[in-house]
């Protein structure tokens, strides 16, 4: 079954001829070549595959691609604007909030979506907001610090 699906991906319009039942993760990684979004568990337990769908952090491994029709999708590759990194990316780099880096894309995308809704989070808010993201290297402490710094640097201003 081939469907025609149009949506916005990282601020560009995309038209796909694809089986709409396939999961967004694989269409992104294979058909569209955006490999920054990772497969970690395939069942929404780990958060590695998180992308923004209309601004909402969404595990793409369980999200049929037909559901993005008419919506806006942002992946890790789409966060930098005009050659400038998103403040959350800057903060992750500054605080070295990564080791193997495999969960990092999903963490950063989640944090971006989360700060859009809650620009001045408490530490407890951050822990709660990131709870569904697993990191085997144990970089949690740095991730929390990075998100705290990104939030204070953005001073509640949400970059588009």
């Amino acid at each position: 079954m081939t469907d025609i699906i149009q949506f916005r991906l990282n601020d560009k319009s995309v038209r796909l001829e694809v089986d709409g039942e396939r999961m967004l993760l694989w269409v992104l990684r294979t058909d569209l070549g955006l490999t920054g979004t990772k497969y970690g568990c395939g069942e929404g337990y780990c958060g590695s595959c998180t992308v923004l769908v209309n601004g909402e952090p969404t595990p793409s491994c369980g999200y049929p691609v037909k559901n993005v029709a008419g919506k806006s999708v942002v992946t890790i590759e789409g966060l930098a604007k005009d050659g400038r990194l998103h403040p959350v990316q800057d903060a992750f780099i500054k605080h070295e909030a990564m080791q193997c880096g495999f969960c990092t894309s999903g963490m950063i995308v989640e944090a971006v979506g989360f700060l859009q809704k809650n620009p001045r989070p408490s530490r407890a808010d951050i822990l709660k907001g990131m709870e569904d993201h697993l990191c085997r290297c144990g970089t949690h402490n740095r991730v929390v610090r990075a998100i705290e710094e990104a939030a204070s640097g953005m001073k509640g201003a949400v970059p588009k």
Partner: protein
Amino acid sequence: MSDEKYSVPRTDGNDDPMTLDRREFLKLFGGGIVIFFSAGDMIFPQEPTRLQTGRGGLPSDFNAFLKIGENGRVTLFTGKIEQGQGAMTVLPLMLAEELEVRPETVDIILGDTDLCPYDGGTFGSLTVRSFGPPLRAAAAEARVVLMELASEKLNVPLDRLEARDGAVFDKSRPQTKVTYADLAQGKAIARQAKQKPALKKPAEFKVMGKPAARRDALDKATGKAQYAGDIRLPGLLYGKVLRPPAHGAKLKTLDTSAAEKVPGARVVQDGDLIAVVHEQPDVAEAALAMIKVEYDLPPADLDDKNIYDHLIKAAPAGRAAAQGGNIEEGAKLAALTVEKQYLNAYVSHAAMETHTAVVKIDGDKATVWSSTQGPFRARDSVAQTLKIPTQNVHVIMPFVGGGFGGKTASPQAVQAARLAKITGRPVQVAWTRADEFFYDTFRPAAIVNIKSGISSEGRIVFWDYEVLWAGERSSQQFYNIPHHRTVVRGEWGGGGGAGQGGGHPFEVGPWRAPASNTNTFARECHIDIMAAQAGIDPVEFRLANLSDERMKRILRAAADKFGWTPAKAPSRRGVGVACADYLGTYLTTMAEVAVDRSTGRVQVKRVVCAQDMGVAVNPDGAMLQIEGCIMMGLGYALTEEVHFKGRQVLDLNFDTYELPRFSWLPKIETVLLDSPEVPIAGGGEPPIITMGAVIANAVHDASGARLLRLPMTPERVKAALGSSS
């Protein structure tokens, strides 16, 4: 251009240097100055020594080299890999320090089997500890070569010269100088490092010991960092391999007709390998799920409940790993005797990246991208599978999404190689999460029996220790005990297999700090139990029984940072302590926990870790490793345990196999102490090994419940609370 030959000296006692002609040499290394060197970790521990050949018949007596190019840039070629531990950041620092260049002028090529000489693999916190000294020596040797060349060029005697910032200066006339680039220009010099030049003392460090930014941070924060699964090649097929329901299951019936009807899907059956390949990985997986298959299962008599009875019965006779004095004599001195048994479960590596590989075959050559800690082992396995010479296989190392000891072999690369050969197309095999749990080589379940005694003065007088199935590392105690014996039974090979005599129902392997988590849990809990029974504060008890000043210093440093105040346990404050010596790295961890008596849940509120690793080459990196070990260690302490029935692994995903989460994050404080007089030790593993004991001791202090079995799940904590009240 002359036809001169270039010598690559040997260190194996053979005086005949191996010779390469100029064309071969330049093809291999380009021009410039090349220094070869070797580290002591060329082979897998516990594997028989065998001579390994690098590319094109290069000798095997070095396992890295560095090159000063004609453009002045320095390149380090090493078979080590980057799995998140920071190798690509820390190794250039060590090189830059001794060579007297800025770290940003150093490039590093990791794990490429065509460019880098043989290396046994990246594991065991060896990268800095074992590879570091020869790396520094080679860089120092390169500096000497450059200074000799400069002496000739500037016509200034050596003792008046000084190297700094990529140039050699006349000390008395700093305007007289020559850069390394100028010195390397038009040269083709190859030297074997003799390890003679004196290494700098820590007080002289300009680069080492100072914080340095990760080299991979930008790529990882932007999604550009490529892992094996991100390699895209023309004609690439994705293979999904049928996983049996249990190890040892025998195929009974197979019906692939539905899968074959999926457009573009091809079912491959090659002996034991049944797989579907497709241009889309998800379609391959969906087609694989349509295969109807029945198996005969092996007997399911073992499970995660009765496994310890089995392992105790199956344990072979042991050998003494350490002993002193006489246990019987010691027992006579004891006013109090404590005898306990400690249990630790199978745990999974559960790296976020599942095993993945891409194999592309061109005639009798193959290129491999593999998520592995052992690129040369991957090369050899693929060569063997394809029946081609090892030098025809080129392994290129992408980033590795976590290893922790679970990615030493590359079975997925072998699967990809078989599928690539059959289909005639490049093939990627990426395991599903369920595959990953099933094929994992778990940390072995293990048992420790300890019988010990203390005198009426609170001194440990004897220590009779026996570890079953975990292995030897960290089993030797470091307290001042006159009569002691440590026996190791049921060892495992370190490279897979089901342990001595096949005691385990599945393969086991190294898991971040192999054996040490189990041995440290048992020893440090037992020390605490003795202290509590003697009515002595656990820190005071340890200090009174230690004579190693370095260990006492690190224990006191942790106590200072933590604000430890002496009390007899259980003090109801929920504080705990554990000490360890991990291959020369000394550490003390202290923790504060809260135990929810109604649910049995343990919340770790605060962890202080004081570590002395000689010198922390990159303190930032070392702290990140400590924090990571603490977080990862919470898992095996509290929840992580492989569930199984027979040889069937019941855990398929992270719903039943619980990893630590953000809500578990304690307040973490680290203390780094230097001991410049001791060799630099590794930091990728030590702080994980104290986590079981420090939490168990804190749980006891909080509640009076003593848990002798890991993980301390809520059910087990509740049960222990019930029996302690």
